[in-house]
């Protein structure tokens, strides 16, 4: 069944089809429709879940962790300042190995007050241990919620996941979405069977004080699970494809086979970049696109393979690590450093605070890179008003 659905409601429908049992969330623009709609779905009994209307995002994540720790499938959603407030508990969700799925609407951080999109909120959570998916379409948002639960709840993973979508550009844009059939979703994603759970019939204490003799190994196990997740995300994606006819991959490549120039982008910017690539291909230019969908675990092998033969690679970042450079740029560059074939990589910052990234912006990037032989600057600002 096809429906016209806004990005935020795609998250809600995803949680509904995944049969989330507990939702704990706090409102923040531009996420409010996610929780508003989930409240309606719960009230209308279309979703059999307990919705805890908490008093902060910090409590939203704490309650989600608590619910997940007793074995329930748990969903929450937030944005920007809310995600920053959750930060402590994101670490907690990872260390406690509670597979909560979190929707985050990418919104720029204040001050100054802003509600428009960029990726600094989610990328600031890079080192917490959350699996991170960056989505391009509402269909992908919905599908990824279902996939994410399957991966996160796998006993080889047991890590929380964050599904990221651009504020307004996606969150408030309506698109046609093919609603997966509930029976098929149930087949794909059965009820959660928790490997560890807080249960009075089998009492254990979780998260006890741990000294230097054991903490190190527990961190190793989280990293190993992250690497396991890489393969399991692909498996879950393949299985999803068989049932629903859609797959997304860790990265998505477009026209890269013989490409001399490759753009690397994420989220909706990748959609804009794709149209520019197609136009230039029509004119005979050897240009392609890599869209990074999964940021954590970082898909080293796939990215290396995709860009190693290019002559130049331009990474577009709707984010910035002050005092360094764009974050995707850093990561892509670092992935290539020890490789025998290393194309020059250029880092472009664009679209901060919701500034439009248009086909003209992308064309400007391509034109700029065309004039450079190697990257002398760590940051190239596009569209900066001097």
């Amino acid at each position, binding site marked *: 069944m096809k429906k016209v659905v806004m990005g935020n409601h795609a998250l809600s429908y995803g949680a509904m089809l995944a049969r989330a*049992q*507990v939702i*704990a969330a706090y409102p923040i623009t531009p996420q409010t429709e996610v929780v508003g709609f989930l409240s309606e779905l719960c009230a209308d009994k279309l979703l*059999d*879940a*307990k919705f*805890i*209307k*908490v*008093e*902060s995002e*910090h*409590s*939203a994540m*704490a*309650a*989600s*962790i*608590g*619910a*997940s*720790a*007793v*074995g*329930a499938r*748990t969903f929450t959603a937030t944005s920007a300042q809310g995600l920053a407030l959750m930060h*402590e*508990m994101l670490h*907690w969700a990872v260390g*406690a190995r509670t597979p909560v799925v979190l929707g985050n609407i990418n919104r720029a951080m204040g001050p100054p007050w802003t509600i428009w999109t960029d990726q600094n909120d989610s990328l600031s959570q890079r080192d917490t241990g959350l699996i991170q998916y960056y989505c391009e379409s509402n269909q992908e948002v919905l599908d990824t919620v279902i996939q994410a639960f399957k991966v996160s709840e796998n006993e080889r993973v047991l890590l929380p996941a964050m599904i990221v979508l651009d504020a307004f550009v996606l969150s408030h844009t309506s698109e046609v979405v093919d609603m997966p059939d509930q029976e098929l979703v149930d087949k794909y994603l059965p009820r959660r069977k928790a490997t560890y759970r*807080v*249960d*009075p019939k*089998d*009492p*254990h*204490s*979780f*998260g*006890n*004080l*741990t*000294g230097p003799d*054991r903490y190190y190994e527990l961190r190793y196990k989280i990293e190993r699970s992250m690497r396991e997740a890489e393969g399991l995300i692909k498996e879950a994606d393949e299985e999803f494809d068989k049932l629903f006819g859609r797959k997304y991959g860790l990265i998505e490549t477009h026209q890269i086979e013989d490409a001399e120039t490759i753009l690397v982008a994420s989220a909706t910017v990748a959609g804009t970049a794709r149209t520019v690539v197609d136009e230039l291909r029509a004119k005979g230019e050897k240009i392609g696109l890599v869209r990074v969908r999964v940021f954590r675990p970082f898909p080293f092998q796939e990215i290396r393979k995709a860009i190693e033969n290019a002559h130049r690679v331009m990474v577009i970042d709707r984010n910035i690590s002050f005092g360094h450079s764009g974050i995707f740029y850093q990561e892509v560059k670092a992935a290539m450093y020890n490789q025998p074939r290393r194309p020059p990589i250029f880092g472009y910052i664009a679209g901060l605070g919701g500034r439009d990234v248009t086909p003209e912006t992308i064309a400007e990037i391509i034109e700029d890179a065309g004039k450079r032989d190697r990257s002398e600057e760590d940051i190239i600002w596009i569209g900066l008003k001097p």
Partner: protein
Amino acid sequence: MKLTIPEQELMQSGHLACQGCGATLAMRYALKALGQNTVLSIPACCWSVIDGPFPYSSLKVPIFHTAFETAASAASGMEAGLEMMGDKDTQVVAWAGDGGTFDIGIQALSGAAERNDNIMYICYDNEAYMNTGIQRSSATPRLSWTTTTPENHPKETPKKDMVGIMAAHRIPYVATCSVAYPEDMVKKVKKAKDTQGCKFIHVFAPCPTGWRSAPETCVKLARLAVQTKVFPLYEIFNGVDYKINVKPAKPKPVTEYVKLQGRFRHLTEADIKQIQRTVDWEWERLLKMAEGCEETEEKKGKKKKK
């Protein structure tokens, strides 16, 4: 031999509490009242250490150790999760110290109370951040020494009225307890367990280490706190109906309580007089709060007899 509290021990010997720890007595009594069908959410506090290091525990009920300010919110999540898993019998208990309750955890606690989530929140109050090395909290009494309120500049402000704050949420049950009155505590925790909704229990739990008092005086000090009216034992139903459980016939002077504690050794006669005046004033205020309520209780009793 007649036992006045349940025999079942759900707290194991071998735990890591200091000698004469009041927080440990509080846990022992609470679990005797709660029984096996209990799960605990414990934030950063002495009990996150007392329980024991990975891979051990001192309790025979499950614990979810959680972040400092999340005892209540994690408990709310656990309660919701258990309900969705079909478990409607297990009592979820948030178990936190005074710092985790009066200070950093008050927002999450207020949220859970306002939502009237079906959890029990037990605060064991040793009147300072003891686990981090005796720093003042908003539960530290006025004029007390701590490492952040040194003797030549002791705490200037009074202890926060946490019970009053919880009563203001109009939750079904609020009670104060003392480790010197285990029968009273067991009764109240059982009452709380039988009450649907959010319950708040405030347990007075002396800390010999932080109070600079002898370990063997732990129970004695807790008893003196009640007998001097420093820490009255009472219940509040639905946020408005007060019931005082212990009314000392001949209240003892606060001197008897403070003189046993090194944290008060710098107090002058004038200081102690001032403390006595405040304690008396607060007690009178509590009596007034309970006045009309006792009539109501009596009226209810009369009605029942008819």
